[in-house]
């Protein structure tokens, strides 16, 4: 189970702005973040120069964050999703084979320490990159980006409905919580399931019935199973170079590391 998402809804991750990163086409940003993540993943964990490379990647991300106007607090909050995997990395330190060493009086594996640290660094860098993407791109724009990257049409439509109604369904959940708590309910132990179970159940019924109503309403407005999309604007070479500068710079860091190190 991942760390629970706070109930700010989907749009809460977006930081409004008009900078160059905000203006960039969403599908280019997706490609850039994916490329960056690929470079980070391709960095060998056991190499001696790996920590320097991680530092280089981090500097690149901080530069992008600075240009985009995304503050350190926003980036730090994005990292909370990582918590379960910090625990897993800590586990690795103890169960890895190989020579042992002493840290704070505990016997830990040397390779486990390197690998656990490396994995944590990689995960952190990718999470930061994805946080930047979410902070500079609205959920609906992200969806358009995925569509331009040739995600199957049905999947795009399902995503569209989900993104449009996630806040509606989430709002219903919030109102139910307010109603429960204003009647003195506090979830203390497993017995609370007798209250929370039916709440989630009625949330499902309401969502499902809402889906049926939405479908009928769309049918009556001429829905035939596909949604018309406007013409796609061509993307200039300038946008491509701007977007690809992040993964290319990361690739340069990786190359320098492997040549020098």
């Amino acid at each position, binding site marked *: 189970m991942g760390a629970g998402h706070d109930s700010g809804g989907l749009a809460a991750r977006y930081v409004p702005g008009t900078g160059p990163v905000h203006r960039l086409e969403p599908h280019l940003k997706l490609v850039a973040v994916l490329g960056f993540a690929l470079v980070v993943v391709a960095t060998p964990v056991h190499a001696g120069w790996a920590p320097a490379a991680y530092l280089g990647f981090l500097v690149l991300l901080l530069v992008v964050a600075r240009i985009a106007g995304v503050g350190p607090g926003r980036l730090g909050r994005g990292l909370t999703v990582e918590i379960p995997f910090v625990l897993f990395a800590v586990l690795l330190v103890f169960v890895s084979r190989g020579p042992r060493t002493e840290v704070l009086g505990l016997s830990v594996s040397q390779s*486990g320490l390197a*690998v656990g640290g490396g994995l944590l660094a990689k995960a952190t860098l990718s*999470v930061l990159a994805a946080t930047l993407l979410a902070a500079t791109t609205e959920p609906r724009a992200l969806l358009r980006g995925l569509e331009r990257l040739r995600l199957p049409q049905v999947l795009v439509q399902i995503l569209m409905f989900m993104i449009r109604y996630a806040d509606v369904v989430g709002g219903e959940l919030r109102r139910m919580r307010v109603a429960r708590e204003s009647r003195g309910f506090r979830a203390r132990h497993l017995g609370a399931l007798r209250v929370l179970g039916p709440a989630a159940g009625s949330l499902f019924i309401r969502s499902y019935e809402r889906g049926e109503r939405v479908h009928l309403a769309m049918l009556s407005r001429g829905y035939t199973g596909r949604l018309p999309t406007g013409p796609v604007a061509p993307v200039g070479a300038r946008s491509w170079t701007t977007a690809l500068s992040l993964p290319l710079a990361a690739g340069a860091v990786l190359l320098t590391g492997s040549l020098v190190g």
Partner: protein
Amino acid sequence: MHVPDGFLDPTTSAATAAVAAAGVALALRGARRELDERTAPMAGLTAAFVFAVQMMNFPVAAGTSGHLIGGALTAILVGPWTAVLCMTVVLLVQAVVFADGGLTALGTNVTLMALVAVAVGYAVFRVLVVLLPRTRVGLLVAAGVGAFLSVPVAALAFVGLFSLGGVADVALGTVAATMGGVHLLIGLGEAAISVAVLSAVLTVRPDLVRGARHLQRDVVLAPRPPAAHPVPVADAS
């Protein structure tokens, strides 16, 4: 728990991405049978439900709380193919909007939480539904066991992938035991929440639970009352 970038080597990530793409393509075809032309709105709203209910924290014990993952529950409620689509969409949104689960690890996450968890949960549920008595309690037990097993099996599938494409040299038994043990506990929570939600839906709208279709009886209509004798109309002359 979502796999972040870099935990598995690129080959394994690419292989799981191919498996995930094939699974989702199959599910797209299968969901059309379950929902026909209503696929997009219904699956979208169900995905929004899964997404919302994952934000709901249930108390477990001693101040800790957990949330539903929902693969098995969704499969029992709306059918396995639609559940695969819903879970995939939720994972995709969590990856691109919440940075929860890496972009390069998206295939791995979809394989584990959308394909393995849904398939295991639903298969166990179907087998138990056949074996157990055809009652509401039997159905709930089957759902609980399916939801319970779906979590540790998905965790063990992750350990298997980690042994194939993990970058750490670890004592696999220890990792499997720890991950399995932790996820057995999480699975207990998943089972409890799934059963509670399912029993609530069964009480109010049993027709919405796809996995409970066999429990539904045809509505017995009251026999038509015999036609009243025609009342002779008095002549008003």
